[in-house]
Structures are given as C-alpha cells and as structure tokens.
C-alpha cells in the first residue's frame, strides 16, 4: 500500500509517496537522495545507518518509514550549519578518526548524540555508546579520542 508520508528531516519537511512497508533507510537513500546514511548490513548490527530521531541515535534500517512520522530526524547531511562543520565533524577529521569513512556518518551522529546527553562522557562511556557502531578500519582509538576531545570530563587529552 502506498500513501503520502510526511517526514521532518534536518529541519525541512518532505512529503514522500511510498509503500508503507519500507524502512526509513530506504526512503532516505532512494527517494530523498540522502545517501550519507549508509547500509552496512541492513539487519541492525553495524550502526552505519544510524540517524537521530528526536535527538537519539536509531538504526534507520530497522525503522519503518511510518514510525518516523511526526518525529525530528537528523541525518549526517544536517549536521553542518551554514557551511560550517559541527565541532564533532571537525574533531573526527582532526584526530584522523576517519579512514574509509563508511562507518563515519553513523559514528559521528552517535558521538554527537552522546555528547548532547552527556557532555562529560568518559572514555568508558564513549566506548559503550559506540559499541553498536562497527568500524573495521580504525581500531576505534582515534574515534574515541575525537569524541573525547569534546567532552568536558576530567583527564581528557
């Protein structure tokens, strides 16, 4: 069954005529060309499809598009403001937390949400927060460093 679904993404409203059994990930990537959100597994394991729903990280491959109606969706494309990167994006670049970059959009959004909720996140809390985001390239060291550089907790590097 197809119907119009209204989505609020990165502070803009989109009306999408879509079958209701599709995932938010599919609609973002295929209908709205927001391909910054990646599909690394399609089954809720890797975290590369992470977007923020009302500020909290969710796996868009596990979410039906209709479940996102009426919620505030943020994708990686919505993080930079007026051509200026968000500090978390700057930190990932500066700390070499990005190699192939496939996990990066999901990882960055997860880090962003964590710091909003817990600006004093410790290394352990950071590692726990990103435990559902798999990175095959970096060994996580520089990702943790990047997020930690923005945390106001004691003992950050």
């Amino acid at each position, binding site marked *: 069954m197809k119907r119009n679904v209204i989505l609020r993404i990165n502070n803009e409203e989109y009306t999408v005529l879509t079958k209701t059994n599709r995932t938010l990930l599919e609609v973002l990537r295929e209908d709205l*060309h927001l391909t910054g959100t*990646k599909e690394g597994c399609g089954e809720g394991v890797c975290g590369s499809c992470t977007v923020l729903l009302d500020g909290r990280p969710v796996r868009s491959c596990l979410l039906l598009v209709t479940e996102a109606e009426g919620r505030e969706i943020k994708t990686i494309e919505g993080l930079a403001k007026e051509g200026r990167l968000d500090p978390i994006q700057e930190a990932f670049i500066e700390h*070499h937390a990005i190699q192939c970059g496939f996990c990066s959009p999901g990882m960055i959004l997860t880090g962003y949400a964590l710091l909003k909720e817990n600006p004093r996140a410790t290394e352990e809390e950071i590692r726990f927060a990103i435990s559902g985001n798999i990175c095959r390239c970096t*060994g996580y*060291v520089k990702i943790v460093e990047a997020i930690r550089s923005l945390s106001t907790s004691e003992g950050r590097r």
Partner: protein
Amino acid sequence: MVDYALIGKGIRRVDTTAKATGEALFSADLKLPRMLVGKILRSPYAHARIVHIDTSKAERLPGVKAVITGKDVPDERWGVFRYTQDQRFLPVDKVRYVGEEVAAVAAVDEDTAIEALKLIDVEYEELPAVFDIESALKPDAPLIHDAYPGNINISVDINVGDVEKGFLESFYIREDAFEAPEDSYFQGEPYAVVAHFDSSGNLEIWMPNAGPHLKAKPLSNVLKIPLNKVRVRKITIGGAFGGRSEISPADVICAFLAKKSARPVKIVYSREENSIATRQAHSMKATIKTGVDREGRVLARDITCYMDGGAYSSTGPIAVSVPFLCMEQAYRMDNVRYRGYRIFTNKPIRGMFRVHGRAFACGIDLQLDLIGKELGFDPLEMRLKNARRPGDYTPTKSKVVSCGMVEAIERAAEKARWREKWDRLPPYHGIGIGCNSVQTGFPMGIRGGSQAFIKFNEDGGVTVITGIVDNGQGNDNMIVQIAAEELGLKVEDIQLINADTEVTPSDPGSYSMCETFVGGNAVRLAAQDAKRKLLKIASEAMKVEPERLAMRDRKIYVIDRPQEAISISRVVRMALSRRENISGEGSYWPKVDSNREWVTNPFGQLSETFSFGAVIAEVKIDPETGKVDVLEVTAAQDVGYAINPKVIEGQFEGGVAMGGQGGMLSEKVLWYGGRVLNPDQLDYMVPIAPGMPKINDIIVETNDPGGPYGAKEAGMSVAMSAAQAYASAICNALGVYIHEFPLTPDKILKAIKEKEEGKNR
C-alpha cells in the same frame, strides 16, 4: 634531517571532510537516470551439475528488462595467472559452492528483481561435495575441476640450503602442527557495482576495487572491447584489506545486464553476499619442524602447509607462498624447505587477506616460544637471536636493503617493559611477542609500474593524475602530500584525478602494499619533472643557477637568500608566454626480478624492499570463563619513513583490532557443510569499541634508499604480528600452548582443564 614543509607531518587527510559530511559517494550511493536494479541468483548447492536453466517466466514478468545466464557471457575464465584460469563469471556446466552465481536479472525496482529471481527455473543434478582439506585429498574424493587431479590446485616447493644437514647439526629439534579456520574481511562497505554503456559502446563502471587497472583488463577480455572503452571510475571505497583486487563476477554480470537492457544497472550485495560471494581468507594447517643450536638460533626448518582454497584458483600461487615469504623475511633461516599446497573444496573462494595465514605465522612464533622454554631463553631473546638484519638475503634470494626488525623488537620491548614483566606477572597474566615482515609489491610484469602526470594551471594550481587507488588507508592524501611537498605548494593547491582507467595511467594497485613505494615514487618523479621546468625558467629570470633555487610557500626562492623570491604562478605564466607548458611525467618500476615466478622459479628479488613489525601484547585471562582481557598492546613497525604519522598510527591501530583482537580472540567462519552460518558482523564477532586494549604505536624509521622520502609499507606487518603476539601472550598466561586458532574461551577453558588434570595425575 631534511626540513620538509609537509612530509612527516600528521596533517588532516584531504579526503575526510567529504566523508564527515556524507558527501563522499560510495558505489551503492550512485544513481543514474533510468537505472535498473540488478540481482543475482545463487546456487543453493555446494556441488551440482546445471542441467537446464529456464528464464522465460522471469523474462515475461513486467518490469524485468534483462535476464542473463552463462550462455550470455563469453567463455573467458578468471584466475590471476594464465595457468590458473578456471572460473567462468557465470558457470554453464556446474556450480562449485553454495552462493555461486547462476543467473541474474535487471528490473525496474528491487521487488520486481527479487520476484524475477524466483521465476527462474534451474534444474540441478546434485554431486557429492567436499568441505575440508582431508576429504578433498582422499583418493575417491569427488573431483571439483577436471584439470586439477586430486583437487590439488597449487603446489609450491621451495628448498634452500641443506635442511637435512641443518637438522643433523641441531642441538634441539621439535615439530608442531598448527591450524586455523577461515577468516573473513568484513569491509565496512558491502560490495556494489554500477555499470553503464553509452551508445558508442563505452563502459563506465564503479565498484570498490584495490586497483582499477586490475579490474579493467579482465573486463576488456570478457566484453571483447578495447581497454580504452573500459572506464573504471573513481569512487569512495569502504575498505579492502587484501580483497577486492580481482575482478568479481558481479562486475561482469552488471556490465552484461547493462548491455542487454541498454540501461544503467546497479547491483548492491547484501552483507551475506559480501561474506560468501566475494572472497574469504584461507583456512590452514601448518606443520613446522625446527632445529636450533644451543643458543636457540634456527639451523633448519621443514614446513608443510595445506590451505583450503575453496572452489576456484583466484590468487592461488600468491596465496600459498605469502605466509612462508613473510616469515622467511622476518627471521633468518638458511636451511629451509617449504611445501605449500592449495586444495580445492566446495566452499567459497579464498583470496589474499591482511592477516594472511595466521596458523602459519602464529605457529612459527609459538614454536620459538616453546623452543626458548626448553633452552632457557625468553620469547624476546628468541626473536632477537633469529631476527632478520639489514643487508641479509632471504632464503629465496631477495636482498633486504633496509630492515628495522631488531629496532622494532627492542623499542616495543622497552615500551612494554618486557624485561621487567617477563616471568614476574601474576597467575593468568601473560605477555607475548610476534614479529612479521611484509612485501612492498610483487613482481607483476607489465603491470608492475606506476606512472603519474602533473598539470600546472596559469594561476599556479596543479592537477595530479595517477592510477593509485585509495581503499580507505589514505592513499589520496599520500599523493597530495607528496606533490605539494615537491612543488612547494599548499595541500589545497593540488587537485587529484586518480584511479580512473579512462584518464589515469597504469598502476599495480594497492593490494600488494606498494602504493606508497611504487605509486608514490612515480608522483614524486612527476612533480620533480615539472619542478625542473619551472626552475629552469625561474633561473633565467632570476639569473641564478637552478641548483641554487628551491620551492616553498608557493614561491621559488634562492636557497641562501630566501628573500629573493618569485611566485610560482608568475613563473608558470612566464613559461606560457614563452609558449612552453609546465607539466610533469614520472614513472616508477620497482627493482624486482622479473624472472621470479611463484611456482616455477620462486627465487630472486621479490619486492624492492620489505617492512618489519613487532607487536607485544599483555593479557589477563579469567580462568572461570576463559575470557581474555587484553591490557595493553605495543605495536612497532619499520615503515621506512612516516610520510604522515597519524595515518600510520591509524593503520597500526586498525591492524591490532583486525589481526589481534579479532584474528586471535574471535574471528572464524562457522559452517554447516558448505553453508556459512555467520555471514554477519554479530555472529562473526567483528571487534567493537569496548574491550579494545590500550595501544601504543611506535613508528620505526630506517629510511629506505628506494622509497619516496625513505617510505615503504605501513601497517600490515603490525596486523600480522598482532595475531602472533596475542597467541604468544595467551599461551604464556596459560602456561599451555594451544595449536588451534583463534584462541576462543572454549579452547582456553579446555587447556586450563587439561593442565589441572595433568597436575593431579
């Protein structure tokens, strides 16, 4: 010490801003007008004859634009060498593993494509199958390829010095067998291809690759079109780790679907397809007999190694040889025999992997530990006594020009405080060390060289053109950092066109770890060529000899009078007004022995230079659960010279995660017959952030005389030696030596139990 402006500095990578914003496009992100969705029908059988394929119902389904089977694809076979070409991109006679491609469709959307696959009728006649090395070698085993009797795909036999005599002179000899099951890449990005033909018959194609030129040639062969019509385009790539260098059936299938439908086609692999139908890493059994003198120095080694190659040859001869070659580089061994066999089974195809041959490498190091225990030397001493030294020749006759093996071991030991800790750790704590060495390229014949071009614009900006590909390791940045350094420009003055076979000259690709050494040298030479032209013009204008001029900060200046300077853009315009263009060309062919051949003549210079790594791991084991807690890892590698130390640290850390944390604690493919039970990251247990140890990175620099600025391979030696260090540390903690990897809690608990029982007996 040369005072470089950019080289040696951990500057930001040029590619990562686009990756941080979601702007960077990967293959699956592409969308072309009228593009169709391609899907592949795969074999449900491990071994079966294809009796008949009926595609008529699928073809009649509305929305289906093309259906192809093996009959639509010319009989071109893939295999890296002429003598190993045994894989049809779509088989016609039989299938040899679960997941092999059988037919494919292109349709207007995914649902229609999936529906169409269900409508293809394939009649199979199931054949007996073999799933392990022993069964494949039985005299009555089903034959997987008629051309390979006994299912033996490749045999390599290397015999150097006098092994018998070495054993006779040995003070102590022991033989051990080690084994490890298949492991897998799990690149972040699942495989994807987009293909499109224009009306002149030019193919444009995008896919993750470890060398666009390595993809273009087989595409040209099977499509019967010249190379200049095959345009493998540049695209962001989500990891390779030794894979993705070979042509994939998906590339060929996508191209044929695009041709038949006359529309662009995109195929995106599921995570499961990426795990079963790209490549896996070999499972392996290695028997190692080693004889040493009283001092623990190796006098003789006899090694036999069986590798399960899966259904087709793939990189066969390279795959069988590399585990041995890494170890003959890392350690001195004058008298050595290596017999390596790659065996066919009805399992997915195996290729090269970043942690290639863990059973072998961990076996060599664990055995050194065991020998040391017998003779009273600790693992560190055993490594130092046998470590490769500069100026040596390897047993297969490669000269080792630069070598920081000893320095890597010593510095790692110092940082990890080995000498304080060895033998003094509490119960169930352990420390261990692994050493490895990796090639910087292989002899690749006419595809072994790299060429680069530099184009100057009138405003002083530059475009660099090279075939070097970036799989995520930072090669794009390496190119820019080198060009900007040589030309005295800023990073932002350099534009890059690379890894696009329409425009870029041939390059050996990244999978043999040679992009910095070979490709980087070519870029540097191209820049120097352009620089020479600029300096000639500047020298006439400034009335100083070119040798007294240098370039920096967008200026050409007199070395001993830096205030006398002229801007580069001005010199370019001077050249143009003299009707001269400023451009540069450079090519680099590594000094390797072109007569060396993997099977028939495995002697001569294999690689112009080698990297050397040493990793030390410290672990704590919970004897109740068998769980390993890795406390600290120190990774040291001789990288020649660190062009960008931050990039190299990233390689080390990723290597520790993949080789040690994953490769030794959890990673293995699980099977039910020929079926993979854990094709996903969760059940395969790809390492995640919690539980990762603290990692100390130590960059050792030996300034290789041939490398650009002295650089060579960076990071793979660490990935391999991390697996060895983890194994060594865990066995040290247990006081028991386990011969089967990875060292999962079940094996650890079993070892603890057996040890307890042994004590009570």
